[in-house]
C-alpha cells in the first residue's frame, strides 16, 4: 500500500507543479535557514572535551580587598599566583594544572625562515594528561621539569612541520626568545572548541603552538597574553613582579576522580579561603565557585549572542514557512475532494485516505529537506567567509545532517496533519453527487 500511495503522491504533486514547487521552496528556505544557524549554534555550544567535561572543574576564589565589595557578586575569573601555587601544591585533586597564555618569538635554525611569533601556553605538567591532549611523538614534561625550570617544550604538529619538516623532533632544539629549548613532545592535531581552558585569549581561538613549563616562562619572563585584574596597590603595571602582585591572571583547572567529589573539593576551597582570611591575606567573606567545563562556558556566555539571535530568527522564519505550507496543502487537498470522495465511495476508510495524504506531505517534506540541505551548505559556506574566529568551525556533521532530514520531514508531516484531517472528512455521497 505504501508504494501505491507513494505513486499517487508523486502523480498528484506532478499534476500541479507550481503549487508543489511553492511548498517545496517554502520548506527548503525555512529548513535551510534553520539548519545553517542551528549548526553554527551546535558547533559553538558544543562540549570541548566530552569524555571528561563533567569531571574537570575550574575553582574560583575571592582574594580582593573590601573596596567595592558587594554581597553576592561573582569572584574574579582567575587566580593570583600565590593562590594558584597553593592550590597546585595542595594536590587535593587527581590532576591539576596552573597556566597562563602568551606569545613567544620563535627563531628557526634554518636561515631561510624568518623569526615569527607563536601563541604559547605556560603550564604545569598535568595539563596534557588532564585535557587528553593527543601526542604524535613523545609526551609532556614531568613535575621535576616544573621544579627545575627545565628548558623543555612541547610543540604542535603544525609547528613541527614548519620547523622540522614533520620528523620526530624529540631531542631537537627550538630557540624561543633567544633561549634554546629541548623538544620533548609533539602534539597531534588538537583544537578543543571552545578554547575552554583560557577564554581570555579568545573563545574559539586555535590551540597554542608552543607549550612551556610555567616556572620556566616566569624565569625567562616570556611575554604573556590574556587578562590581568588588579586591586588595591597591586602594582601589576610591570610584568616582572606578577608573583607578588595583588592581581589575578592565572587559570587553574582540576580533574576530580568523579563528579561526586566536587562537594569535597569545594569544601577544601572554602577551608582554604577561611585559612587565608585568618592569615590576613583575604579580607572578603568566603566566596568560592567550582564549575565544571559546561557550567563555566555557560557562566562566561561563550556563545555569541548574535548567533543565538540568528537561530531564533531562523526558527521564527521556519514557523512562518510551515504555516504557509499548511495553507497551501489545505488548498491542495481540498481541491481533490472529488477524487477523495470516489476513493471513499469505493471503500477506502478515512484512515487510508489520511495515510495517503500524509505520505504526500512527507514527500514534499523530503524534497524540501534535500533542497534545504543544499541551502544549508550554501549558508554555512557564507558563514565561513565571515571574519569571526569561529567561522572556520561552521561545518555540517553527521548528527546535524540527520537532524536536517528529521526536521524537514517531521515538520512537513506536522504541517500536513491538519489539512489531511480536514480532507478525509469529505462526505463521499456529496462529492459524487456534484460531479
Amino acid at each position, binding site marked *: 500500500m505504501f508504494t501505491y500511495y507513494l505513486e499517487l503522491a508523486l502523480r498528484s504533486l506532478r499534476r500541479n507543479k507550481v*503549487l508543489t514547487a*511553492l511548498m517545496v*521552496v*517554502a520548506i527548503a*528556505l*525555512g529548513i535551510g*535557514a534553520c539548519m545553517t544557524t542551528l549548526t553554527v549554534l551546535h558547533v559553538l555550544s558544543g562540549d570541548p572535551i566530552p569524555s571528561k567535561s563533567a569531571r574537570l572543574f575550574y575553582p574560583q576564589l575571592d582574594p580582593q580587598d573590601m*573596596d*567595592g565589595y558587594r554581597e553576592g557578586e561573582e569572584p574574579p575569573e582567575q587566580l593570583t599566583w600565590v593562590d594558584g601555587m597553593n592550590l597546585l601544591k595542595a594536590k587535593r585533586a587527581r590532576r591539576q594544572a596552573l597556566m597562563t597564555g602568551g606569545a613567544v618569538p620563535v627563531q628557526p635554525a634554518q636561515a631561510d625562515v624568518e623569526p615569527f611569533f607563536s601563541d604559547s601556553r605556560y603550564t604545569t605538567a598535568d595539563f596534557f594528561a588532564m585535557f587528553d591532549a593527543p601526542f604524535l611523538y613523545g609526551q609532556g614534561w614531568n613535575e621535576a621539569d616544573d621544579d627545575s625550570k627545565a628548558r623543555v617544550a612541547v610543540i604542535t604538529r603544525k609547528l613541527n612541520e614548519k620547523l622540522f619538516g614533520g620528523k620526530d623532533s624529540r631531542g631537537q632544539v627550538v630557540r624561543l626568545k633567544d633561549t634554546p629549548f629541548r623538544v620533548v613532545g609533539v602534539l597531534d592535531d588538537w583544537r578543543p572548541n571552545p578554547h575552554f581552558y583560557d577564554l581570555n585569549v579568545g573563545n574559539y581561538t586555535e590551540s597554542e603552538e608552543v607549550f612551556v613549563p610555567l616556572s620556566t616562562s616566569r624565569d625567562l619572563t616570556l611575554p604573556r597574553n590574556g587578562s590581568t585584574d588588579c586591586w*588595591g*596597590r*597591586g*602594582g601589576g*603595571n*610591570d610584568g616582572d613582579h606578577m608573583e607578588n602582585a595583588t592581581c589575578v591572571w592565572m587559570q587553574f583547572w582540576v580533574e576530580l576522580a568523579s563528579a561526586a567529589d566536587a562537594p569535597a573539593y569545594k569544601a577544601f576551597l572554602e577551608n582554604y579561603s577561611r585559612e587565608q582570611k585568618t592569615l590576613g591575606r583575604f579580607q572578603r567573606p568566603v566566596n568560592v565557585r567550582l564549575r565544571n567545563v559546561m557550567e563555566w562556558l555557560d557562566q562566561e556566555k561563550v556563545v555569541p*549572542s*548574535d548567533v*543565538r*539571535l*540568528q537561530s531564533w*530568527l*531562523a526558527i*521564527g*522564519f521556519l*514557523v*512562518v*514557512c510551515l*504555516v*504557509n505550507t*499548511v*495553507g*497551501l496543502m*489545505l*488548498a*491542495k487537498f*481540498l*481541491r481533490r475532494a472529488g477524487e477523495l470522495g470516489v476513493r471513499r465511495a469505493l471503500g477506502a476508510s478515512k484512515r487510508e485516505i489520511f495515510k495517503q495524504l500524509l505520505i504526500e506531505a512527507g514527500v514534499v517534506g523530503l524534497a524540501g529537506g534535500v533542497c534545504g540541505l543544499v541551502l544549508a551548505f550554501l549558508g554555512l559556506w557564507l558563514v565561513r567567509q*565571515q*571574519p*569571526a574566529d569561529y567561522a572556520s568551525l561552521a561545518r555540517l556533521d553527521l548528527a546535524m545532517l540527520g537532524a536536517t532530514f528529521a526536521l524537514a520531514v517531521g515538520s512537513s508531516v506536522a504541517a500536513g496533519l*491538519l489539512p489531511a484531517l*480536514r480532507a478525509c472528512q469529505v462526505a463521499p455521497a456529496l462529492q459524487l453527487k*456534484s*460531479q
Partner: protein
Amino acid sequence: MEIQPILAALRKHRLATLLIALEIALACAVLCNACFLIANRMDAMRVNSGVEEASLATLQISGFDEKQASDVNARMLAGLRTIPGVQSASVLNSIPFGEHRGRVGITTDPEGKQFGGVIELYLGGPGSAEAMGLKLVAGRALQADDYQPFTGVFPSSAPVLMARELAEHLWPGADPLGKVIWVDKWSYRVVGIVDHLATPAPDWAGRSAPGWSAFVPAQPGPSLAGSYLIKAPPADLDRVLRDARALVAKVAPDTVLDQEGSQTIGDLRAQFFQQDRIMAFMLVGVIVALLLVTALGIVGLASFWVQQRRKQIGIRRAIGATRGDILRYFQTENFLIVSGGIGLGMVMAFGLNLALMKFYELPHLPLHYLPIGAAALWTLGQIAVLGPALRAAAVPPVVATRSG
C-alpha cells in the same frame, strides 16, 4: 462594497482564513523587530569617533627593542614627514577602531576609593592631538612644554584633555577644569575639555561608555613607540599610506610592519563594524525571504479560492456584477484578512520585543514601527492577491450556465 457577504464567505473558510491571518501576524512580528534590529545596528555603526577620520591613517610597527625605541621613532617620524602630501606625522598609542593600549580603571581620589570607571587614555606625542582634530570646548589647548619625557608605562603625572562625556560622568554639574583623575599612583589634571573623543572600541558594553576617554600628552619614548598617526588630505590618504608602508622597510628595516593594523581610520572603522554589517545583511535577507514566502502563500490560497468559486463568480457576473466588482471583492477580502493578521501581529511584535529586551540589551520597540510594518503588509497583500483577483474577474458569466 458590501463587507457583510465577504465576512459570511470567510466564515465558511475559517481554517484557511485563520492560517493566512496567522502567517501575516508572524510576518508582522518578525518584520517589525528585524527592522528595529537593523536600525539599531546602523545606529551603532554611525557612532561618532570625534576624530577627523577621513584624513587619518595609522602605521603600526613592532619587533624592536625598548632601547631602540627613541631611535626608531625619530627615523620613522622623519621619514613619514618626507612623504609628499603628509600634513602631520605623530606618535599615538591607541587608535580609534584600532589597537587600544590605554584601557585603565580610574579613581577620582588619590586613595583609590572612588572608582570612576574604565576609560581609555590616549597617550600621544606632540602634534597628535591637533592631527586628531579634537575640538576644545573649555579650558586651554596643550602647549609644547606639556609634552614631557617619561619612564614606565605611562607618565606619572600630566595635564590632560578630557572628553566631555567622561567629565560629565565623573563630576556631574561641577566644573571639571583643574580636577584630577588617578590611576593607582599616576595622577592627571584636567586642563581642557574636548567636545568628543570615542574609545577605540566605542560599542564596548559593560563598565564603560563610548565617550569615556582622555588625551595624555607625552614625549615619545620606550613606552610610546611604533604606533604612528598620519594625517593627509582625504584624496591622497590611500597613496600616502602605501608609501608609508613601503617606507618602513627602508628607514627601519629591523622592525616588523603590522600589516593588519596599519590602515586608514576609515578602513579600521569598516573592519570594526564588519560583524554588525553582516548581521544587518542577514536580517535584510530574512525580511526579504519572509515577505516572499508570505506573498507566495497568499497567491496560493487566493488562487485556490478563485478556482473553487468559479461557478459563484460566474453567477454573480451573470446577474450583473461587473469585472471591477469581482476584483474589488477579492481585494477587500484580502484587506480584511491582512488587517486581522496585523491586529494580532502588533501584539506579537510587542511580545517578541519584550523577549528580545530581556536577552539582548535592546530598547523598547518605537511605536512608529507598527504602522510602517502594517502598511508594508497591506501593500504586500494587495500585490499578492492582484494576480488571482484579476483571474477571477476574467471568469466569463457563461460559466454560470455550465454544470460542474
